[in-house]
């Protein structure tokens, strides 16, 4: 039996839980007072729905520092945004430069383009533990000539290690190379200013750090970026035309929107604006420090990620020597109701960079709601599992 009181949810990097009460309230309010289809009809409930979605778009634009809400495209997740941006900006016959810490939401579209013979792929090695990447190597790869696209994650979803994304984006911009940023783990977790970043596209889920429900995502597209949509269809606008509108956001948002999800996401973004994303970052850093300190010098426990908690983003991966990570994760859930994610986290490349492929790691990831006591319980549970293993090994040995 699951209980919200006793559960220790440490899988916020997969999806955040719980959501702020305001998110649930906004969804209920949507169905009570709106509920019509967004942008489709002129009647009151349709307009009420459109108003709420538009306000959510504005809230997100403000949170991300976009110049206008038209740069905020609603998607069903980060993956859809990444596919839209990558496939749209892919240099036919050219090169794509990326890092060794990418999630499969980036790697699979890239490998698809490579296999189809549409682009060649160049992977610049980044350190899975620290997020460090040789910027000269990154620049050299971009500068190698020909039509090029750069794609990089802001933070590793395995260790939380932050990459020097601003510097990487500025290097790409200096060479006139468009860049796609995967902000899946960073959005809502540390301040992000898309204009200052200067990337062509920034994709993020709505259901992780932005605290919205699943089925939501955001793609920031810079005003000068004009790429084809992933799908085409009804938008409620230019109904007399049988061709796709050429203006954002309608160009990229065909079919009925996930209005209730977007409204919930808007409430999550508003919550973050009120709390302050810098405060969230400070909080996550504090929790990471407590967890890492708790595991310092623990026998039989390997901790991955940057030594400096501020160089990561609310994620710590660990392994208990001699026990498969999936077993550790099961022990944690069965014995202590601690929920983690074991395995490769959809990021085989990142695990290879970390030296943890093919087994993977147990990943702990905090959220705005995680408290110190929960961190302490997790530390004690992990130490206990490792101690039991050492004891058993001793008996056997």
């Amino acid at each position, binding site marked *: 039996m699951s209980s919200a009181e006793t559960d220790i949810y440490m899988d916020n990097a997969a999806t955040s839980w719980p959501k702020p009460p305001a998110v649930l309230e906004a969804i209920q309010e949507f169905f009570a007072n709106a509920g019509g289809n967004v942008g489709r009809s002129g009647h009151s409930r349709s307009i009420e729905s*459109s108003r709420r979605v538009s306000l959510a778009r504005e809230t997100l634009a403000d949170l991300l520092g976009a110049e206008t809400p038209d740069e905020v495209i609603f998607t069903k997740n980060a993956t859809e945004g990444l596919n839209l941006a990558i496939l749209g900006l892919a240099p036919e016959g050219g090169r794509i430069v990326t890092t060794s810490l990418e999630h499969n939401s980036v790697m699979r579209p890239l490998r698809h383009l490579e296999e189809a013979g549409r682009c060649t792929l160049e992977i610049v090695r980044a350190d899975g533990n620290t997020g460090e990447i040789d910027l000269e190597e990154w620049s050299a790869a971009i500068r190698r000539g020909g039509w090029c696209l750069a794609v990089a994650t802001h933070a590793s979803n395995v260790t939380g290690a932050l990459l020097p994304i601003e510097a990487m984006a500025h290097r790409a911009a200096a060479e006139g190379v468009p860049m796609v940023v995967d902000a899946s783990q960073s959005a809502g977790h540390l301040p992000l200013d898309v204009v200052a970043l200067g990337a062509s596209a920034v994709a993020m889920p709505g259901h992780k750090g932005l605290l919205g429900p699943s089925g939501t995502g955001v793609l920031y597209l810079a005003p000068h970026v004009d790429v084809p949509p992933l799908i085409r269809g009804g938008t409620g*606008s230019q109904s007399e035309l049988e061709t796709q509108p050429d203006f954002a956001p309608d160009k990229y948002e065909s079919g009925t929107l996930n209005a209730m999800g977007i409204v919930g996401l808007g409430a999550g973004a508003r919550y973050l604006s009120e709390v302050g994303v810098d405060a969230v970052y400070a909080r996550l850093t504090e929790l990471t420090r407590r967890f890492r300190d708790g595991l310092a010098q623990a026998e039989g426990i390997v901790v991955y990620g940057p030594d400096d908690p501020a160089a990561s983003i609310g994620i710590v991966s660990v392994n208990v020597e001699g026990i498969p990570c999936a077993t550790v994760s099961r022990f944690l859930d069965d014995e202590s109701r601690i929920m983690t994610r074991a395995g490769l986290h959809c990021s085989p490349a990142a695990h290879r960079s970390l030296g943890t492929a093919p087994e993977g790691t147990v990943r702990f990831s905090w959220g705005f709601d995680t408290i110190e006591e929960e961190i302490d319980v997790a530390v004690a549970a992990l130490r206990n599992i490792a101690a039991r293993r050492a004891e058993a090994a001793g008996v056997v040995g």
Partner: protein
Amino acid sequence: MKWGGVVSFFASEHAMRAERVLERAELPARLVPGPREVSPNCGVAVAFRWEDEPKVEEALQSKKIRYEAIHRFDLDDEEGAGSGRVLTGETA
């Protein structure tokens, strides 16, 4: 309320945003089903008082809201939105 003008939009998203911008600028405005004579582009338009036209235009432009056109349009709430008619061919 006598509405003397309407703004037409390509996307309803922009109409919603325009409504908020005008509200924040304290310019009376309301969303109305887009009169067919004005624009078939999206379902809704924003009605405003014609005497506010310069301020409406300035507010929308300063907030970078994309609109199709501003029309002189007679729309009277008392008679219902269906009574609206284009007075002249002039657009702002």
